[in-house]
């Protein structure tokens, strides 16, 4: 058989010819963030897990199966759908890294389960996740956008999933960690949260780049789509949140966290926040669980612990020559 040249030449990705510097910047950050669940000593949480009441254990496993579902969607549908729309070959490569890490995230919840829980408890929670109408609805809303949306709509949906929908779930391990429970599990979740921050940033950035290429009318149409989608998702999220968190009396606290994250998701897309500042004010214990050890004396708000800023930090000394 004779070799036939394809109609358009296939292009090999050349990382020494960048069309967008952000592709390399984000690639570097994502590859240096790489981790596997085996790195986290989850078994140290076994004694802590044993102190949880049955309903607290059930809530925790349910929350984690909900998160598993969203990561599965990102791994199998979301990231591949965005790859098809990539405008640079490097963007496609970054998205393939993102797709793989979504599989690591989904897999890591099962590591938590196999370390802490019984098979029956876990099977019951997976059944719950398949039957829970709110969880199924939010995944379906995002999947609709992935299947039927244009490239900008898909990106908006992806940012909402990664920067907003995950947080009703992420709240719980942060709350446990603020009460010195399941702290190794929280360390693993923080690795996921950090990855999602880069994903939301990057896809939001590509969204903004794409938006700058279209007409004002098209921009208005996309903005309407984005705000109406986040509204629909928010409605489902509030019901999902109430169902999970009414029991322990945390629904109010979680809602503030939802508002805060919805605002951040919109900022990733370059939009203004939706929820007013008071509604988006998060329990300080949850904030410090998100960024432990980063407290600072804060001159402008007069709050924060008065840590001296004297801890040695890694700096690029060859760049700072004074």
């Amino acid at each position: 058989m004779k070799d036939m040249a394809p109609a358009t030449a296939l292009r090999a990705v050349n990382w020494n010819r960048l069309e967008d510097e952000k592709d390399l910047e984000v690639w570097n950050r994502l590859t240096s963030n790489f981790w596997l669940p085996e790195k986290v000593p989850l078994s140290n949480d076994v004694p802590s897990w044993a102190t949880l009441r049955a309903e607290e254990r059930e809530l925790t496993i349910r929350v984690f199966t909900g998160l598993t579902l969203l990561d599965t969607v990102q791994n199998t549908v979301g990231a591949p759908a965005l790859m098809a729309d990539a405008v640079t070959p490097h963007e496609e490569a970054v998205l393939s890294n993102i797709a793989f890490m979504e599989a690591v995230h989904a897999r890591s919840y099962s590591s938590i389960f196999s370390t802490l829980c019984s098979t029956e408890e876990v099977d019951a929670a997976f059944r719950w996740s398949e039957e829970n109408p709110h969880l199924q609805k939010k995944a379906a809303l995002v999947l609709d956008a992935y299947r039927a949306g244009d490239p900008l709509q898909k990106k908006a949906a992806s940012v909402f999933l990664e920067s907003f929908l995950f947080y009703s779930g992420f709240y719980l391990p942060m709350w446990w960690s603020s009460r010195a429970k399941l702290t190794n599990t929280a360390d693993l979740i923080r690795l996921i949260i950090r990855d999602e921050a880069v994903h939301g940033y990057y896809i939001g950035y590509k969204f903004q780049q794409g938006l700058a290429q279209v007409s004002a009318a098209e921009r208005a149409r996309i903005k309407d789509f984005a705000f109406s989608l986040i509204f629909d998702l928010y409605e489902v999220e509030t019901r999902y949140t109430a169902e999970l968190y009414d029991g322990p009396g945390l629904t109010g606290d979680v809602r503030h966290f939802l508002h805060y994250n919805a605002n951040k998701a919109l900022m990733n897309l370059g939009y203004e926040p939706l929820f007013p500042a008071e509604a988006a004010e998060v329990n300080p214990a949850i904030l410090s669980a998100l960024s432990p050890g980063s407290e600072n004396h804060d001159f402008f708000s007069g709050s924060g612990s008065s840590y001296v800023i004297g801890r040695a930090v890694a700096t690029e000394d060859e760049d700072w020559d004074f």
Partner: protein
Amino acid sequence: MQGLAYFTSASGNTGRFIDRLGLPAFRLGAGADPSVLRARPFVLVCPSYSDGEGRGAVPKPVIRALNDPAIRAQLLGVIGAGNRNFGPLFGHAGRVIAEKCNVPLLYRFELAGTETDLARVRGGLAQFRRA
């Protein structure tokens, strides 16, 4: 009255914060010569871009400007921008600059900032002005 300088990359979060703040500010890394910053005291607003270990958090154009002793001498303090989801490295560039230049880390905010952040930064800068 002190001046204001900032860096923002193509994602533009810090730039949107500065726009909403509504105060005149010098943008680093956009081509203009930073030596104008030698003229009077200023506060710097800087986003963080570290690798996983915290290295490289401060954008190069900011380092280049601060390597000029006459600019550094005018730096009053720094406001770090970033995202709390980076955990212990939240707003890390602010901390690195504060340490390197021996100035206070005045404030930190996430992404393009909230109304609360804008109010605190406005209030803080005004207080500075009176001091």
